[in-house]
């Protein structure tokens, strides 16, 4: 595999691990494993651990997937010139080339 491809894939993996770390922390650690101690804290009228499990985690999930899509856009642009020349074409041309490949 060429170096730039490797670098792109490495950068992608680092991003995935970082985001999955947040995913694990909010949904598993805060919402389940530590829910009892966290319930001692009140947020508005609701125990914090309970709120994380039924509200907070979902908002964080939504943020995570958008962050991934946006960060990957940046990564695509950064490596865009070097990876697969036909894919650095504008969006509309890319669609055409995708269709032609089928």
């Amino acid at each position, binding site marked *: *595999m060429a170096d730039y*491809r490797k670098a*792109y*894939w490495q950068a*992608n993996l680092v991003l*995935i691990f970082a*985001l*999955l770390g947040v*995913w694990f922390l909010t*949904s*598993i650690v805060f*919402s*389940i*494993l530590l*829910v*009892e101690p966290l*319930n001692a804290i009140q*947020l*508005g*009228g*609701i*125990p914090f*651990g*309970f*709120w994380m*499990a*039924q*509200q907070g*985690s*979902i*908002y964080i*999930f*939504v943020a*995570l*997937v*958008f962050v*991934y*899509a946006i960060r*990957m*856009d940046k990564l*695509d642009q950064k490596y865009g010139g070097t*990876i*697969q020349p036909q*894919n650095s074409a504008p*969006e509309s041309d*890319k*669609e055409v080339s*995708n*269709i032609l*490949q*089928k």
Partner: protein
Amino acid sequence: MSIELWTAILACLSFAGYVYLGWRFRVKSVRGFFVADQSVPALANGVATAADWMSAASFISMAGLISFLGYDGSIYILGWTGGYVLLALLVAPYLRKCAKYTIPDFIGDRYDSDAVRMAAAQATIFVSVIYIAGQVRGIGIVFSRFLQVDISIGVTIGLVLIAFFTILGGMKSITWTQVAQYCVLIVAYLIPAFALSALLTNIFIPQLGFTFSDILERLNGLQSELGFAEYTQPFHSRSMIDVLAITLTLMIGTAGLPHIVVRTFTVPNVRAARFSVAWALLFIAILYTTAPALAGFARYNLVQSLQGKTAPQIQQLDWTSKWENTGLLTLEDKDGDGFLRFTPDEQTNEITIDQDIIVLSTPEVANLSPMLVGLVAVGGLAAAISTASGLLLVIASSMSHDIWYRIINPDSRESHRLTASRVTVGLAIAIAGYFGINPPGFVAQTVAFAFGLASASLFPAIILGIFDKRANGQGAIAGMLVGLLFTTYYIIGANYYDVPTWVLGISPEGIGVVGMALNLVTAVGVSRLTAPPSEQVSAMVDDLRMP
């Protein structure tokens, strides 16, 4: 006008809309039929995925289920949203890059083996058939409750409608009808939730009312008075390890469910695949953050309006008499003291409530007009129809594309393949109709099986196919076998043969995550002990990693 009339009018209007969209987007090519010409914009695909995902169970039963389970109901909220993070980061972009028609298509090509393809196709069909029985049943139930039509007639009406646009336009028609169905179902869900939130907390937005009012505190107080566990008290019906295992199984299963994963094949490129999952989760989150709020409100309202009242007082409430007739609510003064008591003890409890009432009765509880009650019914129909149509397409494409075309008859012409696809949709509809009208008794347990199976078989095969270049056909087969056999053995043993839940007390619903771990370990190990995959496969993996 009466509720029945409004429901009938709104149902007819929405059905006419779906039929129009089905006709408008009819297709003539295999690519149109299976992947909507890969031309669905990311945002529209996100909306369609949300409708595909939110089934009759999400719409009708989930809030009710949570309102009876309190904190322990979080497994559904977390499990059925957290899976989309896995789908977005680990699955969707790479599968879109491969540009296949189905999951078995990807798995079969990646592992370069028809045996693996066949195993994946069968797992896909099995998971989807289990799932669709519940959806079709949901259509029948909504019809029977709101229009007093026999369940089998309701099922037939729903299936004829689905058959029309699925056979005509495949994935393309399904996509655009799902977009319409999402709009119907989300409006139908939110209006009563907003009204109930304003009524009980004086805050219009349910998520805010749930968080910033004192309703949960009052609810916890009421629950303790009646002898129930506090609503926010964790782990009173399941242990922590069980909650953890079920949540993970639902998450992983979600990211491996065929009818969700195939939606990522329909967008124009990898970038659109990433954004379409993001939009999907956003649109799902709108309903999934409302549901726990609705659950809390409904629980409070129920406990508060029933407690300490005499039997005639309760029977005078508008909604109790109506739901008592449907058999979903039973009131029985067991000790004959003239009061109806709601308690956690089955022996002395005098009020029995089916979880499905919670959502279906909210508009009446919140004193909304009959039109809005009808709208909730139509929303339930939209949720069931959208999920059923997505599932039907997956069943049909596995039968016609993966098994018939790729394995049995690879030389067939495109026109024959298109006909075969339309015929298999018809076949799948017949199977779904049979199970909808004669529901097998094991449906409730088998839904757990669907998630367990998807997480123990399809998910690891997909993930290793992308992230482990060394994974080969032998490893994939061995992994799937071990994962499937273990999960099936555990679920069937616990449900039918009273085998104790010997793995850390994990219930059958949560065993899929253990099956997945066994699958991963086996597949990685066996792959390392056998010959590496061919140059060609290696190049395919390199290629799918680049956008």
